[in-house]
């Protein structure tokens, strides 16, 4: 049984991880509500952006330029995908549209393996300048990257909430989540609103890729399939509430990292998001919410 002082450090890293899961989960939920597409390529897009950033840093490009490339890449790829395959698959089952994004995932994943094959010796890594600075709280070392990750999760969740409630575009998105056809009839430029949702989600995927490449590991498979963890948080929120997504993401991140020092459980800690999501799905299915929801859309 590890002592509290051992756990404290993992609490900090867990909060940081939870922050990134939260901003990813919020991006997934907003896109799903606005367009009906569950964007499973979220992780792959972010990972590809992170590798581009790595490549630019290797070529000693300025740091800020590399960050912008990573984030904008996510936004552009997502926007292009949404513009091509959004209309092509509109009106199909949500399941088909989610599976189609797996196509994009595989394309990006293959391209990453091709361009950045696994190295035998030194592993690739990204280190942000914020890793070195930091401060001490109650005897705990906290890096600025961890602060940024958690703060980004909080800020994105709050900002998205305000955006959806008080802006014209946000209201249009909420309207589309309720009924696309009626929204279109009322004169809302549906395609433009969707484009905004795709681009916003893509920006978040690039940002998440940037942070996760630093916090976790710069490796194609790891980063690509980390989307499943954020997805777990979104699923716990039934792909609806961004507040629940945020809480679930923080919980998953913290539990995941707190399990690290327990020798019996440390190998199983990667199961945390799956276990949470499976329990949530099964509980939700008992109350029938998921059933009605998918019937509405099918």
């Amino acid at each position, binding site marked *: 049984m590890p002592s509290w002082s051992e756990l404290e450090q993992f609490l900090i890293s867990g909060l940081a991880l939870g922050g990134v899961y939260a901003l990813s989960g919020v991006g997934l939920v907003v896109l799903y509500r606005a367009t009906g597409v569950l964007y499973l390529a979220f992780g792959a897009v972010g990972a590809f952006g992170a590798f581009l950033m790595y490549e630019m840093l290797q070529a000693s490009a300025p740091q800020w330029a590399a960050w912008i490339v990573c984030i904008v890449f996510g936004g552009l790829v997502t926007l292009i995908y949404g513009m091509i395959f959004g209309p092509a698959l509109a009106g199909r089952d949500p399941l088909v549209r989610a*599976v189609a994004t797996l*196509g994009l995932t595989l394309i990006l994943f*293959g391209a990453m*393996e*091709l361009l950045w094959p696994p190295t035998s010796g030194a592993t690739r890594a990204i280190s942000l300048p914020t890793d070195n600075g930091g401060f001490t709280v109650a005897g705990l070392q906290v890096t600025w990257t961890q602060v940024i990750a958690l703060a980004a999760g909080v800020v994105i969740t709050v900002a998205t909430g305000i955006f959806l409630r008080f802006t014209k575009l946000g209201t249009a998105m909420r309207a589309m989540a309720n009924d696309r056809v009626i929204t279109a009839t009322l004169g809302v430029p549906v395609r433009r609103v969707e484009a905004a949702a795709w681009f916003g989600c893509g920006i978040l995927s690039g940002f998440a890729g940037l942070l996760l490449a630093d916090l976790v590991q710069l490796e194609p498979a790891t980063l690509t*399939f980390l989307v499943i963890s954020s997805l777990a948080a979104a699923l716990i929120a039934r792909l609806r509430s961004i507040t629940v997504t945020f809480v679930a993401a923080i919980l998953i991140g913290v539990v995941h990292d707190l399990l690290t020092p327990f020798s019996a459980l440390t190998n199983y800690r990667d*199961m945390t998001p799956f276990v949470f*999501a*499976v329990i949530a799905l099964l509980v939700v*299915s008992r109350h029938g919410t998921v059933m009605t929801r998918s019937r509405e859309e099918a």
Partner: protein
Amino acid sequence: MTGVDTKRSAAETVAGQRLALLRRPERPVHLSVTVALVLFALFGLPPLMNGYYTGYAALTAIYAIVTLGLGLLVGRVGLYSLGQGAIVQIGAWTAARLLFGTAQPYWLVIIEAGLVTMLIGGLIGLPAIRLRGLYLALITLMLAGAFTVVLATVNFPNGGGGFTGYNGQQSHIPPIRRPSFAGDAVGYYRLAVVVAVIMFILVYAHLRTRPGRAWAAIRQSEPAALAAGINTTFYKLWAWGLASFITGIAGGMLAGQARYLYSYNFTTQDSIILLAVALMGGVYNMWGAVIAALLMQMLPAVLQQQGVSYAWLDILFGIGILQVLTTAPTGIADQFPRDMKKLGGLIWRLVRRPGASSAGGKASAAGSATGGTT
């Protein structure tokens, strides 16, 4: 009581018709082509292949069973599973454990692996099929992810003791045994083909009888199927169990083919690639499963010989998913003959020159003959 009697006699007639339907194949040409292909795969192909390709041909036969199970779920019942990779692993693990731990005959172990997988798959499926569509796909993806994590810690049995049968030391690891009659590569390949053929017949028998019709009704509309008196939960669970059973058998065959199993050879993207190739091959046609297995196992083998990176396949499969879902939902198995038919018709018309309108009917018939045999 006469009502019951007429009902019973009516049921008997229907049963008789069904049996007749099973006995008499719809298309004798198709049947003979299929039999010829199977005989060629059993006896014609092995002398043409070196050891490298024989191994991959065996894997193709094994994975045809997996994609058959997935095609059954997706195409016939409308259940999308993103966790079939994990089901294969359960079958392989069980078979490896039994082959190391007991002296049972090989065929018995394979069937037991199928049954255990069916049981575990059913336990997963029982709650999972209460969910629909997107949520079912996601829960299977989550379970597959969780299972991969467990397997990375537990590892595949390699002749050690205890429940997990894992020997941590790297010395004296025996290979997984094969049956005496199929010890060499060609023998095991033939065994794999025979097992695959049996599984295809099993699934075909299901599709041509009551469960097949129930699944078709469920796929069309679940409320309508329910209204027609079909126990939808039971038949969905049946499909799930059948798919798990044959996938478990494929996993067991895989254990004998690989001889050494390592958990890092099984990844989360396997499940996704399985769905990709199943969709590309075509889920509404049993030939689609064979095409999918060729795409998944034979194509990489050929490409590797040419020195092409495996990563290109991921890209190809990604494009394939998008293409199938947007323009050709029936996959290669149905799309290719249709394209060939069109091409044949086009060539026929070019050869004949635009002329007599009565030639139109003949043109399409000739086209279908070329399309059918290719």
